[in-house]
């Protein structure tokens, strides 16, 4: 979940309230924002990814203001100027086809406001923008631009400009190669022969989306008029980003001027700050929340969350959704807001009177019996991760096949799922070579193997005895006693294979079916695992025996 840092006084001022920090934290918590950190005048909150309007101080302040004082709908200020024209050339259609834009006049930007704009831009890029791939936001000083604007793509060597933070003109290739942002986002453009550009009527390059803006259009505290564009591959995402940017900036100051985006075959006027309507059934409110609320109570609660609503019929309300609330896609989303306004801790809880029978998983009782028997035979239970790695499995099993492998592991230690418990037991013993003997350990757990492209899980039991002297019979006796107590005939047949010593290994058969093997571990392997005492070990697949758990067996 994204975190947002803001200046507490700035937020209070924007919200038009003066409350204690505790009261502020309480309100934020009611709005799903969890205070994480307070350093001096700054506070950091964790916000939820469904509320991009909370990705900066402005939106948070609006939320806090409405929650504390209620509101009467959303009315952004519009400038009287005619829309700016923006022309989209077909050359971008295969690269980065869509652009939306807006201008904001008469802004007053404090240092804190600049910080918040940058934070908002970054949070939107990393979430809805898919790291600038789907949507990338540019903020410009409109006074240094000469409309009309042109959005087109050119070969990288055919243009040059001074990028932000740089002191010389660079062409497209140089920007990708020599600037920090260029290197970071170059994978988005690298494969194309042309790079997208925003230019003005003079032919001046204003930016190279989604990489960098020009130094010339840099925004500072003295900037009075802003231009904002969002380019990308997903129209929904770019509109969302533009709306959140514009509505947030407007919380401080300014009037919005529209931009007409002219494609070859269509024209779009942005930002689309239209208000959508959502019908809310009173029955849904009751069914979901369990609260018996009258329509006017619901209207008041919705007001505290920034929604204007009115009765649409005896059974419904018509709720107006402000353009920054991108999370409202169903009436239940409004019910949540009603509950938030009501206060979860003001609600009564009720244990549901649903008659049902609690029941453990099939195999649980069998598992419990086997574990009891192993403990009874003096074995310490161990619990290891399912995640393992091929090197460990290979080493212990003398070659492993059918392991489920992770494509991009975080750590080489955890890069596959175990196919057997034995490697983990050897690892465990090797890790405890200095601990008093005898060591008797067991694990009851799952392993996964790929069979014909399908991952098959089986439930296994593995046990090991390590002491100054351990014989084949010591571990064989464990298997025998275990199955005697499970009323199962067990049969041992000689096998000759690693990791066991020749002549000291047996396959274990139950009902004429092989379920595993046991024996004395080959000394070379013990050395590999830094174990210097003999080890008797067994591993059995118990999946087919789980049905033994039924209380009455025929």
């Amino acid at each position, binding site marked *: *979940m994204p975190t947002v840092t803001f200046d507490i006084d700035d937020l209070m001022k924007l919200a038009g309230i003066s409350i204690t920090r505790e009261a502020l934290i309480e309100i934020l*918590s*009611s709005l*799903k924002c*969890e205070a994480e950190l307070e350093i001096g005048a700054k506070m950091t909150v964790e916000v*939820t*990814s469904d509320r991009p309007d909370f990705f900066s101080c402005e939106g948070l302040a609006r939320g806090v203001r409405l929650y504390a004082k209620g509101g009467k709908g959303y009315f952004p200020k519009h400038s009287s100027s005619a829309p700016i024209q923006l022309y989209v050339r077909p050359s971008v259609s295969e690269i980065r086809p869509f652009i939306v834009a807006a201008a904001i006049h008469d802004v007053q930007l404090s240092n804190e406001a600049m910080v918040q704009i940058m934070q908002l831009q970054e949070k939107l890029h990393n979430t809805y923008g898919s790291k600038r791939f789907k949507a990338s936001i540019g903020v410009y000083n409109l006074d240094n631009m000469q409309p009309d604007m042109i959005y087109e793509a050119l070969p990288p060597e055919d243009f040059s400009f001074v990028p932000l933070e740089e002191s010389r003109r660079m062409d497209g290739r140089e920007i990708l190669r020599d600037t920090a942002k260029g290197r970071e986002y170059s994978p988005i453009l690298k494969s194309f022969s042309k790079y997208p550009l925003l230019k003005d009527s003079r032919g001046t390059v204003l930016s190279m989306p989604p990489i960098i803006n020009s130094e010339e259009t840099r925004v500072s505290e003295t900037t009075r008029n802003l231009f904002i564009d969002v380019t990308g591959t997903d129209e*929904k995402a770019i509109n969302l980003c533009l709306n959140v940017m514009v509505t947030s900036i407007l919380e401080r100051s300014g009037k919005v001027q529209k931009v007409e985006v002219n494609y070859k075959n269509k024209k779009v006027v942005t930002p689309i700050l239209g208000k959508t309507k959502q019908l809310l059934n009173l029955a849904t409110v009751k*069914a*979901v*929340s369990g609260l018996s609320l009258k329509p006017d109570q619901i209207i008041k609660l919705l007001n505290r969350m920034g929604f204007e609503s009115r009765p649409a019929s005896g059974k419904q309300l018509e709720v107006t959704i402000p353009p920054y609330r991108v999370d409202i*896609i*169903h*009436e*239940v989303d409004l*019910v*949540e807001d009603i509950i*938030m306004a009501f206060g*979860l801790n003001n*609600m*009564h*809880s*009720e*244990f*549901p009177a*649903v*008659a*049902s029978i*609690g*029941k453990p*998983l099939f195999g649980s009782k069998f598992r419990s019996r086997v574990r009891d028997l192993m*403990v009874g*035979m*003096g*074995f*310490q*239970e*161990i*619990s290891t991760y*399912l*995640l393992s790695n091929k090197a460990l499995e290979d080493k212990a099993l003398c070659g492993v096949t059918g392991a*489920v*492998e*992770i494509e*991009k592991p*975080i*750590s080489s230690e*955890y890069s596959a*799922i175990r196919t057997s418990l034995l490697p983990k037991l050897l690892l465990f013993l090797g890790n*405890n070579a200095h*601990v008093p003997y*005898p*060591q*008797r*350990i067991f694990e009851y757990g799952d392993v*996964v193997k*790929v069979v014909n*492209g*399908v991952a098959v*899980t089986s439930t296994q039991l593995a046990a090991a005895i390590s002491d100054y002297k351990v014989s084949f019979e010591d571990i064989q006796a464990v298997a025998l006693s275990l199955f005697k107590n499970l009323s199962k005939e067990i049969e041992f047949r000689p096998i000759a294979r690693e990791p066991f010593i020749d002549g000291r290994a047996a396959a274990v058969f139950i009902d004429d079916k092989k379920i595993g093997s046991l024996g004395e571990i080959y000394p070379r392997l013990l050395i590999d695992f830094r174990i210097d005492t003999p080890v008797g070990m067994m591993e059995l697949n118990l999946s087919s025996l789980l049905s033994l758990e039924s209380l009455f067996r025929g």
Partner: protein
Amino acid sequence: MSLSQSEAQLLECLKKLGGQANASQLSSELKLPESSIFPLSNLLATKGFVNVTETLHENYILTEEGVYCLRNGLPETRMLNFISSHGGSVPLKSLASVLKPNEVSAAIGWGRKSGAITIEKRDNLPNALLKHKQKSELEELLYKLKADGEKSSLSPLDQALSQPLIERGLVILRERTEIVLQMIREPESATILNALTSDLIRSGKWKGSILRPYDVTASPPSLKIGKKHPYLQFLEEAKEILFDMGFEETSGPYVENEFWNFDALFQAQEHPARAVHDNFQLKGITPIIDAPVALIQAVKSAHENGGGTGSKGWGYSWNIDIAKRPVLRTQTTAVSVRSLFDRRTPPVKTFCLSKVFRPDLIDSRHMVEFGQLDGILGDHGINVKHLLGILTEFGKQLGFNEIKFTPGYFPFTEPSIEAYVKHPKLGWIECLGSGLFRPEVLAPLGIKFPVIAWGIGIDRLAMIRLGLDDVRELNTLNLEALREWRWW
């Protein structure tokens, strides 16, 4: 009355010595210092096996000087012999050849007093003249004291005579307390055994033996006992609570496809809601969705346009190939939604407690594999109040009597609620995530009743319960830690 090994040995020795012996006899017989005999005697006297009598002994002991005189004669004897062998008169000075300087005055004093010699001047020198040779009575007494110095066996005369010997430093009188033990009761058993054996029991020999007592206050060796794993035991106990609350346990595959892990949970492909957490993609697994075509279609339309649920949906083109991709299960909610689809008739009350996998930087608080508990409850008429009721009850059963709620966000529930429980030492701990499944989740599955879903990062609670501060210790490779671990 029980006897220690040493007590029994002493009694046995006493018996051998005829039922009565003093400490020094016992000491040499038992090869024990006399100082050990005294406390044992007292213990045996307390237990009624012996009478102990203490006697004060005074003994005359010859000093080094005394032993010298015994061998060479007393000074007076040597003086008389010397004078006699030199013609009955010698100059006093020459006595130095047979007397040590400190003996001269004692010898002359005795000689004059007894009248054996006189001192006269000859040639202007003092000479000793022998009058009559006689034996010193002290000579005999010295022999007697050497043979038996016990004061009580000397006649009063001898006792008086020994006084000059003491004064002359030839003899000293030493006092000594001696104890004498007299057996008054024999111990029941004379045989001391280290262990009771089946032979002894069968033969009846145990009746005549005593077992060597242990020092019961000393520590025995510690046992390496078999124990169940504490983390797994904690999980078992959490499950017990859910069984008691009427929940049925379910399970599902670790290797999931994105369809059940994300799409069926209305987590849009390539949307921040899906990236709430990252996932592990896998190699070597055939991409496939194990679900009926109708369900896949219904999920597709829910994503694209709400699928007739009254929702707008996510408004994008749903890609079945993404849904087919095999992943390691990132949430046990994937199991819950499978169980819901398998059952479909209310009430549905299930839970899954198992492992989930998420890429994360591994540290003391994060591991790429961890335990998650996910429960669902679906029935007609279920609402948020019941959700709060379930969470409150589960918290209580875990031992947390205070619980508070805040709104939260999960892509598949609306409303979404997080719960905090109050720990006596740690304060409020974020414990549960929950909500009512969204209509876009339920409708494609064909579920026509509301369903509560709630989940717990169970490892966090396990760490608190087990007193660990590193999540990786839940799966420790440290045998000593497991051997030493205890519940209380």
